[in-house]
């Protein structure tokens, strides 16, 4: 090792040598193949549809599996169209029986689980099998709530232990291409359930062959296939060679044609050969990767808004130059700060709740945390869904300290006197922490003292579920585009540990909700929804925050992109313009 001393002067070169080697073998972007680079910010749990409860897993599952129905890619408001079903169902008068015809010639992916490794045709029995899996008590699917207490005989089947050979009254397959569902009671949202990933069709052979490992061996009917999942942070999907003939939609919203979204009309999907899904947890590297064109499209983290977005929601020139396009679309969600209405402090004190709502300057929140690009929420239902009224203004939503102080007096705590310190629960992310800080400051202005308690997600959930959280920040995203999905957040039977974490309980609200929830879509139901929505506003069971917007940036070479709230499986419509990519790449 004597060389070390002789080489002292050249040590730097010695150190840099391996570095140069690494740089030499840096990856080159290929322009020969249509590859879509996507990003997700949380890991994919696995590829079993019955567990695909989080957004990213469900999107990943949606590339490989299909449900009976799907949302129309371009039409708004969101409407259902057949996917594996060949047509919309025949629904009986009483709304209890759904007869669904299936497409013929739909093949499963080629997989070892089938004889000769050739994917066989998908049949009605596969649908029934998949529904049984969702209800199987041994699996404890996270999507069971969707069908719980809805399909005739399914709950009993589940109670009895889930014998796959046992018949279920409400689930019949008269022939290979027909499935009949019989419901216990009217459930107007039932079809939405059949469009969710939970109800995707899975072949029995794969489940039986792979057993518990099924979740790593996706075998579906979807537009893309993938090799056994190895829990990598980079998942590669390939175009399904067995895919049936599916076409790009020919109609859409008015503006779609103008945006060039109809150019591909009638063409066979999918367009891309490959999808590379990269999981990147931290926003900084995700953004940097996007900028470098390593990722094709990307939902912007809030802090990068300013850099990308010029005033007026347009993209900044610097990015426009690079061909980057920004899509801003309202998303079907609501953020809120919930009161625990089971807490004696808030239970019967609507004035206190109102006072706190009035003291919380949502416009400022909008500006600080969402760069002023969200919609102030008046009540619980977001725009774009029946029940939302453009003209409705919640009297307790405005920022008005004078009124807030009046309410404080009515509440019996003038200037906050006598009011105990309120505990605000939040999770430990950077933004949540900053939001909590802002909330504390706002409440201090009317003499309400708030103490922040941060937790990890499990702790937070536990506190909410055991009704220990006094106040907490939350958000709700639509499972399906129906007001019911939002209004049920305040329905008292859904109290903790259910989705009504605020434990709001109001007999009038409950009975109106019960009525409306079994009604088919109709003006009467919309009126009822509106009434419920107004009650939700005036009772202030929670301080409403904002309806967020989704900000998606994509590179110029991604074609046919349109924001979709329920985007699982929509990648089949995307296209990559390789010429454009090459051109724009040179600019970078």
């Amino acid at each position: 090792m004597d060389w070390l001393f002789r080489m002292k002067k050249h040590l730097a070169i010695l150190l840099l040598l391996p570095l140069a080697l690494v740089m030499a073998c840096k990856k080159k972007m290929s322009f020969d193949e249509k590859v879509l680079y996507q990003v997700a910010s949380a890991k994919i749990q696995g590829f079993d549809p019955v567990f695909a409860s989080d957004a990213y897993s469900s999107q990943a599952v949606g590339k490989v599996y299909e449900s009976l129905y799907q949302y129309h890619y371009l039409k708004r408001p969101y409407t259902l169209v057949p996917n594996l079903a060949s047509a919309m169902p025949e629904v009986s008068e009483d709304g209890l029986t759904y007869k669904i015809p299936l497409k013929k010639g739909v093949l499963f992916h080629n997989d070892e689980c089938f004889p000769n490794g050739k994917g066989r045709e998908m049949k009605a029995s596969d649908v029934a099998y998949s529904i049984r899996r969702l209800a199987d008590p041994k699996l404890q699917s996270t999507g069971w709530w969707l069908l719980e207490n809805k399909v005739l005989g399914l709950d009993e089947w589940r109670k009895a232990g889930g014998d796959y050979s046992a018949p279920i009254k409400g689930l019949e397959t008269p022939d290979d291409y027909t499935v009949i569902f019989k419901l216990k009671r009217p459930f107007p949202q039932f079809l939405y359930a059949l469009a969710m990933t939970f109800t995707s069709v899975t072949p029995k052979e794969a489940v039986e062959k792979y057993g518990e490992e099924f979740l790593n061996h996706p075998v579906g009917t979807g537009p893309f296939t993938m090799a056994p999942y190895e829990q990598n942070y980079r998942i590669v999907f390939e175009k399904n060679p067995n895919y049936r003939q599916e076409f790009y939609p020919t109609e859409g919203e008015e503006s779609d044609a103008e945006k060039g979204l109809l150019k591909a009309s009638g063409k066979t999907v999918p367009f891309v050969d490959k999808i590379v899904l990269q999981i990147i947890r931290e926003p900084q590297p995700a953004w940097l990767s996007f900028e470098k064109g390593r990722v094709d499209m990307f939902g912007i983290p809030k802090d990068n808004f300013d850099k990308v977005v010029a005033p007026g929601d347009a993209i900044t020139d610097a990015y426009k130059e690079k061909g980057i396009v920004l899509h801003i679309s309202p998303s079907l969600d609501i953020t809120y700060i919930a009161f625990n209405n089971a807490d004696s402090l808030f239970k019967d004190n609507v004035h206190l709740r109102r006072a706190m709502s009035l003291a919380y300057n949502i416009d400022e929140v909008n500006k600080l945390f969402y760069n002023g690009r969200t919609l102030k929420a008046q009540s619980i239902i977001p725009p774009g869904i029946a029940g939302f009224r453009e003209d409705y203004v919640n009297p307790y939503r405005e920022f008005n300290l004078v009124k807030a102080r009046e309410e404080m007096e009515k509440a019996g705590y003038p200037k906050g006197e006598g009011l105990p310190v309120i505990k605000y629960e939040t999770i430990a992310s950077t933004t949540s922490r900053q939001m909590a800080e802002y909330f504390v400051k706002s409440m201090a202005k009317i003499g309400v003292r708030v103490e922040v308690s941060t937790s990890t997600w499990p702790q937070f959930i536990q506190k909410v579920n055991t009704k220990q959280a006094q106040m907490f920040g939350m958000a709700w995203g639509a499972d399906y585009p129906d007001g019911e999905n939002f209004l049920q957040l305040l329905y008292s039977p859904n109290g903790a540990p259910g989705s009504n974490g605020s434990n709001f309980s109001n007999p009038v609200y409950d009975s109106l909700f019960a009525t409306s929830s079994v009604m088919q879509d109709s003006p009467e139901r919309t009126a009822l929804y509106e009434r419920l929505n107004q009650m939700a506003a005036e009772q202030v069971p929670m301080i409403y925050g904002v309806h967020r917007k989704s900000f998606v940036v994509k590179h110029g070479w991604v074609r046919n992109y349109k924001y979709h709230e329920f985007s699982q499986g929509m990648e089949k419509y995307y296209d990559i313009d390789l010429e454009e990519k090459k051109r724009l790449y040179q600019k970078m």
Partner: protein
Amino acid sequence: MENTIKIKSRSVWSDAWDRLKRDKLAMVSLGVIIIYAVVAILSATGLLAADWDQKVGESYMAPTTEKISLLFGTDIFGYSVLRKVIHGTQIAMSVGLISTLIAIPIGISLGALAGYFGKWIDEAVVWFYTTFSSVPGIMLLMSIAFAFGKGLTTLYIALGLTSWVGLCRLIRGEVMKHKNREYVQAATAIGAGNGRKLFIHIIPNVIHLVIINASLQFQVAIKSEVILSYLGLGVTGQPSWGTMIDDAKQELAQGVWWQLAGATFAMFFVVLAFNILGDALRDALDPKLKGK
């Protein structure tokens, strides 16, 4: 002992202090630490940067020399980053101090007991810290957070409870060595009991290791606060360097570098000072290592 005090003599400690005084770098470091401590105290008593939660400008203003409060720019709320940095000093110093104060008594007492009494006590302590150190530290930290909830107190406890093993091991080894030294044998010969041998004779002879360890533990705690903030175990309700650096992970791509820079520099100097002082203390207190 009235008579003795009058006669000036040089104990090991005063010798060490003399040696330390001669080390200019160490004295500068000590100065830096004192300045940080003063800033922390001033901030804790509300004399300095008490108004950190006041807006001084727009959100994310770049650093400018126009106003002192804008020297490091502003954060998302338009708060002065400089004030936040100053306020963060208080958190950093208290995290360092308190977690060190928690870890050291545990480390010394377990280490000394194990090293001195040996036999099953030693076996038990060794088993305990082997068990303890074979579980990944991060799990311990997180579960302590589960047990105590989030916040500053948890931070103190979590960092304190997970950092005694090194010291314990060190003290155990040293006590074992000293136990067989002739001066301890001599103490036995004059009739000293276990307590006396351990506390009057052995511990004062290993305590310098504790001081060196403490100065290093202190800076490790300050650095750990950043990691814990990233993991969501950080301080809430007030700015700390950790939360500032954590914020920066969303800001940097946007060109907002000053929160990261401010907090990193503030941390850099105090950690550097503790490191240098730790080294100097080792040289001064452990003369056999002098000059290394």
